[in-house]
């Protein structure tokens, strides 16, 4: 099975001279279709940098990022922008909803930018809002919603259309625990349906939804926890249930 996302010995530096920061120091990672990978690590360990590189928002200093087998470094600006819009969905800490647009318009925006007709984009947006459980808020403006509802809109925007790679940076950060769990269930379902997902979180309970949990420290992967099987899980409990 080929990876939807592959990082090959990726490094990323910021600044120069005295101010040189090694945000990532040689990270290799593959995420297959259907797989959800969580990234954990202390503040400043390079988690957000990893997501930015994975989504083509930043270029690595060295190494290569491939999305569905295509090296991002070889793409023209235009093609890169296309991959970012079509193949990749983002949920970032900063939600970036457009206040002047309704929920449905916010979600439809990337599809419209991508050339989908207004009607088709609206229909897809409503589907995505339904998937995150807030179809009834389609015509509301972000300022008239709670933080949790806005977060769901941002997630719907990341899932709309056929995104094969979903990147989420602390998507549950501002949410109460119940809404956080619901968001995780959504991400998990999307991956079970065939997307590849990368989730940055400091919350172990949310990371535990992943197939693999990768631990970053000072820009390096220091360890990894892999989910095995239900049988192994039951074995953990010393039971044959």
């Amino acid at each position, binding site marked *: 099975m080929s990876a939807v996302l592959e990082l090959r010995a990726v490094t990323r530096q910021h600044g120069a001279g005295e101010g040189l920061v090694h945000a990532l120091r040689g990270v290799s990672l593959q995420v297959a279709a259907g797989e959800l990978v969580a990234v*954990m690590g*202390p503040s400043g360990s390079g988690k957000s940098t990893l997501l930015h590189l994975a989504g083509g928002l930043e270029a690595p200093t060295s190494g290569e990022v491939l999305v569905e087998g295509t090296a991002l470094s070889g793409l023209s600006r235009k093609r890169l922008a296309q991959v970012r819009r079509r193949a990749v969905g983002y949920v970032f800490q900063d939600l970036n909803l457009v206040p002047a647009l309704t929920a449905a318009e916010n979600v439809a925006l990337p599809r419209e930018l991508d050339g989908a007709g207004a009607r088709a984009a609206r229909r897809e947006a409503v589907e995505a809002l339904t998937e995150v459980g807030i179809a009834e808020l389609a015509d509301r403006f972000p300022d008239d919603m709670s933080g949790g509802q806005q977060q769901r809109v941002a997630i719907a925007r990341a899932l709309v259309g056929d995104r094969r790679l979903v990147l989420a940076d602390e998507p549950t950060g501002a949410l109460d625990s119940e809404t956080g769990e619901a968001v995780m269930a959504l991400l*998990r379902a999307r991956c079970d349906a065939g997307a590849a997902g990368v989730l940055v979180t400091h919350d*172990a*309970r949310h*990371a*535990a*939804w*992943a*197939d693999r*949990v990768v*631990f970053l*420290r*000072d820009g*390096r992967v*220091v*360890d*990894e*926890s*892999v*989910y*095995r099987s*239900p049988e*192994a*899980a*039951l074995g*953990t*409990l*010393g*039971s*044959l*249930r």
Partner: protein
Amino acid sequence: MSVRHGLLALLSERPRHGYELRAEFERRTGSALNVGQVYTTLSRLERDGAVVGTGDGEEGRSTYALTPAGAEELHDWFTTPVTRESRPRDELAIKLALAVGAPEVDVPAVLQAQRTDSLRALQDYTRLKARADAVDDLAWLLVLDALVFQTEAEVRWLDHCEARLVRARAAAPPGPAAAPVRAPGREGVRR
């Protein structure tokens, strides 16, 4: 955990056979009992007058029922909080307490190995929860929730230990004991 009180609780619902007690205990708590434990405990309960066995006396075929004395003992168990002291000692806390003073121990690597193991357990519990039924498996879900919360707390505590260690090393006077905290490398981590 007391097998004794577990059996009394199941018998308070209705009389049951020994093999049924074993299966039901495991179904609800995820915790396995061996046959020997069940029958040894039942005969002690019978000796103490907390249960009565009926039927032809052949072990697997006897039915056990709660007596008023057994009901009273069970009531006391449910209404008495489980004290912190009565739980097993926390081996992990003891291990780390000893690791920080021991020479040649890569404490961050010890912390990371534990964190990875705890996360793997949390992944297991999360999947088991997802497979359980909210109504039929209520008892089992409560047990899984307990494991999730305990494990989550453990991971938070490990993160806290790591931060505390970094601060302590930064504040310690220079010397062999104040060696900089190394980031745990793969080689240092038990897989």
